[in-house]
C-alpha cells in the first residue's frame, strides 16, 4: 500500500531541507511517531544514516530500523526498512514558480507473504496512517514558516542595528 500526501510551504526548499534532515525534529512534527533515534552520534540525516523508528498504528507500534537510501540536497530524501515491517518513504521537495516549496511525503508499507490478511490490514491501517501524514505535513509547514519568519525578523534586526548604532 502506498500513501501520498502533499502541501505547499511558504518558504524556500533549503529551509524545509534543514528541518527534515535534522533527526531531533521528527518527534516534534511527525504525527504518530513514538520513537525516532538516529543511530550515529550526529543527529543530522545523510545518505546511509540509520534510524530506529516506531509509529503507532492501531494496537501496535510498528517500524524498525530504517536507512536513508537516497539523498539529493533540497530535492529528495528517501529511506527503506532494514528490519521490521517493509516500508519505504520519501520526502520530495520542488520549488514552485513563486519561490515557495511543494513538499510531498510518500509512504509505502506492507508485510510480504502475509496474503489476504496482510492486504486487509494495509487497507484498515491506511486512513490512520494517511491522517498522520497529513497532520505531519501541516506541522512541518507551521514549523518551517515560523522559522522563516524568525529568520526574516533576525535579518531585519541586523539591518536596523548598524543604522541605530
Amino acid at each position, binding site marked *: 500500500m502506498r500513501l501520498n500526501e502533499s502541501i505547499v510551504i511558504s518558504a524556500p526548499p533549503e529551509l524545509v531541507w534543514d528541518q527534515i534532515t535534522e533527526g531531533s525534529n521528527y518527534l516534534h512534527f511527525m504525527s504518530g511517531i513514538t520513537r525516532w533515534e538516529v543511530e550515529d552520534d550526529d543527529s543530522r540525516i545523510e545518505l546511509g544514516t540509520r534510524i530506529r523508528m*516506531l509509529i503507532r*498504528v*492501531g*494496537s*501496535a*507500534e*510498528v*517500524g*524498525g*530500523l530504517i536507512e536513508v537510501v537516497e539523498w539529493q540536497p533540497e530535492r529528495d530524501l528517501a529511506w527503506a526498512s532494514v*528490519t*521490521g*515491517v517493509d516500508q519505504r518513504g520519501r520526502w520530495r521537495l520542488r520549488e514552485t514558480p513563486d519561490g515557495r516549496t511543494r513538499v510531498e511525503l510518500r509512504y509505502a508499507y506492507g*508485510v*510480504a*507473504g*502475509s*496474503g489476504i*490478511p*496482510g492486504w*486487509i*490490514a*494495509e487497507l*484498515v*491501517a491506511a486512513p490512520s496512517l494517511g491522517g498522520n501524514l497529513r497532520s505531519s505535513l501541516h506541522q512541518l509547514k507551521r514549523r518551517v514558516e515560523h522559522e522563516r519568519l524568525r529568520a526574516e525578523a533576525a535579518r531585519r534586526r541586523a539591518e536596523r542595528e548598524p543604522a541605530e548604532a
Partner: protein
Amino acid sequence: MADPATIAERARTNGEGASDLNGEGPGLRDRLAPLGGLARAGGGLARAGGGLLAAGQEAAAGVAAGAARQVRQRLRADLDDRDPDWLRERLPMLWLLATIWFRGEVRNLGNIPERGPVLMVGNHSGGNVTPDTFVFTLAFSSYFGIERRFHQLAHNLVVTLPFSGSMLRPGGTVAASHKNAERVLESGAALLVYPGGDWEVHRPIWDRFKVDFAGRKGFIRLALDQDVPIVPVVSVGGQETSLFLSRGDRLARALGLDRLFRLKVLPISLAIPWGLNVGDFLGHVPLPAKITTEVLPPIDLREQFGPDPDPDEVYEHLTRVMQETLDALAAERRWPLIG
C-alpha cells in the same frame, strides 16, 4: 514380542526431564504412569484371550509407547521451532485481531530492557484462548522486531495438541517446565511466563480484577538462577472475553485430570458457540472486550532484595505491585467489554 511390563517401563521413563516450573506439580513420569497401566491391562487381557489378543496387546502397547514418545518430544523445547518468517507473515492477522476485535493497548514497552534475556511475568486471562497473550505478542514483536527472540511458556496440553501446537510453536511457545525456561533464558531470549497458569486463566468472572498466582514461586528461583530481571506485565479485559462461572477444580480432581494431564481445573463457562462450555478444550469465540496491558519497570531481584532474596518476600512484593496496577487499570474501565 515386547513384554507389557517393559513397555510400561518405557512409557514411564519417556517422561524424564519435564519438571514443573512451579516446583510443585507431579513429574511427567508420574503423569505417564497411567499409560503404562493401560499397557499392563492390555497385556493381561491378551494372555487371557490367546494369540489373537496377543497381537492386539502389542498394538495397544505400541500406541501407548508411541504417544508417550511424541509427548516427550513436544514437551522438550526445541527453540528452533520458532520461525521468525512464519511469525512475521502472521503479524498483520494478529494486528487486525488486536486492533479491531480487542482494541488492544500495550503501554510502556520501553520498560523492557532493550537487549539480553529478561523474564516477563504476567497475569493470565481469557481461558484457553488467552487473547492477552496475542495482544502482547503482537506488541512485543512489532516494538522490538521479530529479530529479537521471544518465547512464551504454555500449558503442556496446549503445546502438545496437534492443532494448537502447530499454531503456537512457530510463534515461540514452548511447554511450561523449568528446564525449558532455563534453555530459553540461556539462549539470551526474552521469556513470558504466567505463573497462575490454568488456575488463574479460568478464574470466575467476578474475580476478573484479581491477580492469582496460587502461591507459585518457581519463576522467582528461575530469575535468581539465571540472574535476569523480572518485568511485570499486567493486563485487564481478557477475563471478560468469556463468562467463566467456576474453575471446576473439584471436578478435575475427581476425574484424575491433574494426574493424567496436569490439569488442575475443568472450567465451566458460558461461551460462544457452545453455550454451556465444560473444559474449554475446543476453545471458544472470545467476546470483543477491550484489552489494556501495562508493562512495569524491571525488578533486579538482588539489587532490590539483597544478595540472597527471600522468595516469599519477592512473591509478596511482585503480586502486590501487579495487583495495584490491575486495580488502577480496572478503575479506568467504565463498562464491561467496552472498556
